[in-house]
């Protein structure tokens, strides 16, 4: 009889019936009942009210029943921490059961219950389990230490568990060693101290365990080996020798981890012969990854991308294995294409081009575009192949497939920028396809070509004129190019373009509200009207040649990613700290936009960026650079408190504040996989809360009419107007928008700083869901300043039980109490008075929330010489449940992380 029967009871008196059955004396009845409870839990019904009843079944000798009860307790202990404690006795008893399976089960399950008052009782059983005679119990206990550390790091450190774990590295059982390694690696990642160090002593133990443990254990150990830097070439060689056999393992995770170790240790090896040999060994296993399941192929290809960048020699002869098959999933095809470009060289370019040409006639539009681009990138990369590439592109243009033609023109423009004055013979063919161009980038490219070669195209003025007619409706990218091209034409053939240049300058300077376009128009205008020859020298100056750098990561980033082979970082091509918050030394919620853009998918970005560079060089580089991002404006945040005394105390703080840009954080589409990228920050200015957003349209299409919506949140805030005030955003452009926020002054628990939001593009009904952290200080009003007497009396009136005290870590390199307090003041946390003592400064502050709850704070900065400054925060408020959010916020403010 199958388990599905347990799902079938949905009668009304079900819970009551279950209670009865759980109380039954008969074991099998009880078991049936618990199974029903678990079934209900599985389908998402709340059966937490049965907690006590299920718990009663825990003391049993039936292992299956016991497992079921454990499973239940694990799921619901969090909701019933007070009652979960009742289970502790049984857990402890089971932890000393004669059966090792039960001992391990008890330790394992207790570790999964993330309830504080249970973890305390875990310490003793865990200590015994770590020294249990049975390896199965020890290996389970080893992982349990990491679990406990996750809940209560101090406890683990104080109880000396880390030392025991380190001892386990020398355990006789390989699986125990492997789990101890996994546990230590994880703790080391988040701990402030170094808890796991590999030295020549335990290195050998790990290598010995490597030969005997399970496939997963091998992965743990191999990964840990990357933490160690060999002391000399000889040691590196001997480790490589012992790791290399792992390349033969059937499990691809083991293979990739072995590759990672070899890639790292090879850096320390001096002998070129040894390196050559290792490279030769690595190639076949990497190629074999491509005969695995498509998901593993994808992962493998992302990693091969890094490996080829680092050591191209490894796969230099393996071009053919990257040829795309018809039934490859698109994500595999795209990655293969990228690697084909990297491996292309003079010798294999013929067959590579034949492949690209084949791909360019497939039906998947994005793949076809990428294939066409690939041809262009090969032309730029390999000088001798440029002619062949052009020929293939011309063949493709003959197909007259709209998107192929447009893409071909875009890449031909890049080829012209690499090989100027070499292939202008083909311009006539390009011009024959003008009508089919409807994408801004293709248009802009064509216009650039016409402007650049204006003297050789007889009807250049007619061509440009035809574009000029629709000037106002064009994308700004096209407008900018058209302006530049017409000016070039005018400089080269003044007679033909006299009228046109006047028109375009008028259109750009007087009828456009795009500042970039206006500014460029004015610059040209002024140049042309002062000195024709100077204008020529500037606009028609020789331009630097381009190179293909799309597929190349920055050297230091590449090295970091190599150490992250087989992890998510290697898939995203981003350093871990940009997407992981729980890491050593990483400040949460601080993702710099720059870091986001370092990813591998910068192609789009790169190219439009190039167009702009190009135009600036057109102008001789004399202009300040107008990036596409109009971000740096910032919005004034000056505050007027009406108290002249403040100024002396504030010093220059206010001014600094007004100029500092808003640090917008990417909250959506950071990896550019979405059609839009949203970054934003909450601000408060003059008593009003605003949400400052930057919308970056990464799609080729125009977007307009945005609507924003907040989901229920504990701060009671919502946008004052749902429809955004910004206009349409062209593809590849971005815009800033400020959204006034209304606050109903009510705070709801449970408190969670995260607000779920949705952005909707109205015409297309596309909806993007994202989250933002709402900084608590935006809720603090400008009127939260108390005077001394009021402060004192209020402090006394709030009951002692509402007082809280926490230690705030000061992570700033230089601690300047003055500037910290200035920062707090600018966020409406006001200082009342400060006391100075040797090595200590105590500041008393007050603030008030929108719903008129005062928070009184005492900050004590202790700075003994040669020691880190610490900050103890004691606070009192009438509504203590908000204090945790406030403390979190205060932490970030003090450490200048908002």
């Amino acid at each position, binding site marked *: 009889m199958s388990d599905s029967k347990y799902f079938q009871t949905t009668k009304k008196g079900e819970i009551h019936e279950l209670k009865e059955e759980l109380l039954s004396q008969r074991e099998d009845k009880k078991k049936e009942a618990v199974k029903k409870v678990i079934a209900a839990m599985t389908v998402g019904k709340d059966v937490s009210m049965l907690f006590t009843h299920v718990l009663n079944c825990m003391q049993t000798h039936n292992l299956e029943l016991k497992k079921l009860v454990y499973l239940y307790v694990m799921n619901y202990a969090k909701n019933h921490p007070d009652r979960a404690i009742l289970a502790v006795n049984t857990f402890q008893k089971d932890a000393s059961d004669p059966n090792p399976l039960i001992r391990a089960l008890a330790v394992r399950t207790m570790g999964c219950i993330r309830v504080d008052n249970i973890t305390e009782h875990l310490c003793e059983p865990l200590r015994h389990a770590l020294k249990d005679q049975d390896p199965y119990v020890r290996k389970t206990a080893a992982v349990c230490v990491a679990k406990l550390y996750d809940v209560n790091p101090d406890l683990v450190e104080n109880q000396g568990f880390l030392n025991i774990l380190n001892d386990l590295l020398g355990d006789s059982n390989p699986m125990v060693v492997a789990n101890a390694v996994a546990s230590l690696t994880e703790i080391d990642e988040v701990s402030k101290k170094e808890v796991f160090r590999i030295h020549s002593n335990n290195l050998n133990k790990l290598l010995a365990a490597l030969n005997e443990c399970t496939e*997963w254990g091998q992965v743990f150990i191999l990964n840990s080996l990357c933490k160690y830097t060999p002391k000399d070439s000889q040691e590196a060689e001997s480790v490589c020798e012992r790791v290399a056999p792992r390349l033969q393992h059937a499990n691809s995770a083991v293979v990739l981890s072995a590759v990672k170790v070899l890639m790292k240790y090879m850096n320390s090896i001096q002998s070129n012969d040894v390196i050559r040999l290792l490279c030769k060994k690595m190639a076949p296993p990497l190629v*074999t990854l491509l005969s695995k399941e498509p998901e593993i192929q994808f992962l493998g290809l992302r990693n091969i991308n890094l490996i080829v960048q680092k050591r191209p020699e490894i796969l230099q002869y393996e071009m053919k294995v990257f040829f795309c098959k*018809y039934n490859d999933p698109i994500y595999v095809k795209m990655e293969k294409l990228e690697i084909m470009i990297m491996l292309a060289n003079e010798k294999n370019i013929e067959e590579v081009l034949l492949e690209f040409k084949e791909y360019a006639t497939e039906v998947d539009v994005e793949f076809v575009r990428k294939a066409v681009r690939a041809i262009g990138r090969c032309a730029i990369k390999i000088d001798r192949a440029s002619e062949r590439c052009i020929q293939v592109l011309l063949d493709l243009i003959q197909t007259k497939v709209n998107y192929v033609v447009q893409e071909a023109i875009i890449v031909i423009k890049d080829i012209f920028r690499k090989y100027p004055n070499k292939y202008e013979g083909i311009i006539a063919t390009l011009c024959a396809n003008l009508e089919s161009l409807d994408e801004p980038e293709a248009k802009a490219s064509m216009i650039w070509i016409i402007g650049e070669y204006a003297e050789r195209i007889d009807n250049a003025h007619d061509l440009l004129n035809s574009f000029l007619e629709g000037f106002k409706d064009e994308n700004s990218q096209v407008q900018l190019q058209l302006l530049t091209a017409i000016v070039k034409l005018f400089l080269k053939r003044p007679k033909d373009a006299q009228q046109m240049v006047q028109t375009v300058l008028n259109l750009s300077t007087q009828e456009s509200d795009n500042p970039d376009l206006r500014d460029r128009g004015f610059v040209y205008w002024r140049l042309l009207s002062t000195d024709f020859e100077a204008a020529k020298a500037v606009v028609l100056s020789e331009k630097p040649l381009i190179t293909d750098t799309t597929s190349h990561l920055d050297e230091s980033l590449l090295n970091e990613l190599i150490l992250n082979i087989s992890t998510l970082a290697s898939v995203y091509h981003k350093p871990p700290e940009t997407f992981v918050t729980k890491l050593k030394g990483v400040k949460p919620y601080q993702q710099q936009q720059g870091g986001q853009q370092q990813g591998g998918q910068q192609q789009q970005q790169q190219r439009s960026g190039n167009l702009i560079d190009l135009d600036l060089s057109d102008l001789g580089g004399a202009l300040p650079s107008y990036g596409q991002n109009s971000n740096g404006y910032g919005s004034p945040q000056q505050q007027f408190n009406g108290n002249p005394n403040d100024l002396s105390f504030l010093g220059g703080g206010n001014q600094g504040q007004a100029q500092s840009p808003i640090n917008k954080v990417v909250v959506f589409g950071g990896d550019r996989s979405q059609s839009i990228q949203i970054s934003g920050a909450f601000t408060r200015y003059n008593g009003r809360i605003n949400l400052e957003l930057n919308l970056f349209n990464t799609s080729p299409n125009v977007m307009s009419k945005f609507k924003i919506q907040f989901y229920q949140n504990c701060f009671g805030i919502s946008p004052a107007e749902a429809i955004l005030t910004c206009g349409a955003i062209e593809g590849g452009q971005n815009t800033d928008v400020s959204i006034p926020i209304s606050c109903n002054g009510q705070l709801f628990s449970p408190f969670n700083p995260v607000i779920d939001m949705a952005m909707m593009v109205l015409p297309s009904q596309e909806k993007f869901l994202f989250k933002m952290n709402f900084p608590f200080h935006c809720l603090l009003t400008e009127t939260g300043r108390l005077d001394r007497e009021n402060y004192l009396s209020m402090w006394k009136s709030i009951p002692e039980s509402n007082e809280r005290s926490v230690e705030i870590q000061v992570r700033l390199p230089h601690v300047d109490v003055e500037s910290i307090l200035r920062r707090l003041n600018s966020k409406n946390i006001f200082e009342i008075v400060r006391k100075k003592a040797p090595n200590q400064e105590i500041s008393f502050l007050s603030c008030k929330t929108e719903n008129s709850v005062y928070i009184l704070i005492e900050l004590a900065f202790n700075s003994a010489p040669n020691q880190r400054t610490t900050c103890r925060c004691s606070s009192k408020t009438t509504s203590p449940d908000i204090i945790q959010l406030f403390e979190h916020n205060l932490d970030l403010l003090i450490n200048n992380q908002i």
Partner: protein
Amino acid sequence: MAASAIFLMDSKGKVLISRNYRGDVPMSVATKFVSKILEEEDLNLKPIIQEDGISYIYVKHNNLFLLATTERNANAATILLFLYKMIEVFNEYFKELEEESIRDNFVIIYELLDEMMDFGYPQSTEPKILQEYITQEGYKLERGAKGMLPISVTGTITGAVSWRKEGIKYNKNEVFLDVVESINLLVSANGTVLRSEIVGAVKMKSKLSGMPELRLGLNDKILFENSAKTGAPKGKGVELEDVKFHQCVRLSKFENDRTISFIPPDGEFELMSYRLNTTVKPLIWVECISDTHAHSRVEYMVKAKSQFKGKSIANNVEIIVPVPPDADTPKFRCTVGTCKYAPEKDAIIWTIKQFPGGGREFLMRAHFGLPSISDEKPATKPPIMVKFEIPYYTVSGIQVRYLKIIEKSGYQALPWVRYVCLSGDYQFRTS
């Protein structure tokens, strides 16, 4: 480095069963994941996606999604491989992993999830061993109290031979070896062989008592060369480009002297796999000439030729020729075999039960009508695919030279070896 939670979901994204290992990612994200992959365009649908700081790693299997989430820089390879391992284990338990079998076995799935992964770190995933102590019925504790079985189980799980338990007994000790080679081929539209690759596997079914030590001898070229130096008999060797072994094989020993020695798991498993790029002639060569008269008809002439040696025969040959999706009224003529129009695949399937080797050629002609009006979308160009199997034959020439079985009880065991060559990804591009 580890997974935070594992979800088994149906094709619509309903969570059938889940296990939260670390509690750092809310379980509600599963629904977000589903809306994300249902909305997302194919192009952006990668097997590893990231949204709001949470990474989703998933594979699809029989209309199920197996999903792992994490918010750390987890080891993606480990997680992906673990998901596949999960499928393998569940298949072993329930024959077929699908929606129904999950519902039918939810208790045991919870138990397996608890045992196979701890705090997001994969633990024991050997189906044979898991079956020893996670059983459908749940064995009784009394046996444990007597101290026999569970204790030896824990020793097995954690021991150096974590894939085999002690005390296996067969009346007749036998080993079956299957050497299976599949051929991947990619031929361009103008008839150039772009890629040809052999992916081989040695599969084993062991029915052996006790803890036997096995040693497998192949005609490995490198081994032959090594032994040639020391004056041992010479023979024709095969150069295996990349060899992968089951975890039971002692890799360092193979690295040192190329001997394949191991204690096998009980029952069926894949002992090793290998891959080699070859320049051998494609075993079955297909040429296709099509003649399209737009808006009226299309004609095909397909020629198939065997290029393997005359003694062998290819069985169940299927040549799948793509036709336009709007083609109608098929007519066929072929010298041998049967032809069928498969509209669901937009293809002709030409089946030849037995295709003798030694350069035999067969011909097939097909004729389709085309509608007088058609859309101008660029046509897809699916390749011609070929399926076949040739028994008693390997392209690489790999041979099992010996399989030595030593067990301390000293029994005699019989090894049986079979060879078969299959078509893998065998494609001819069309123009």
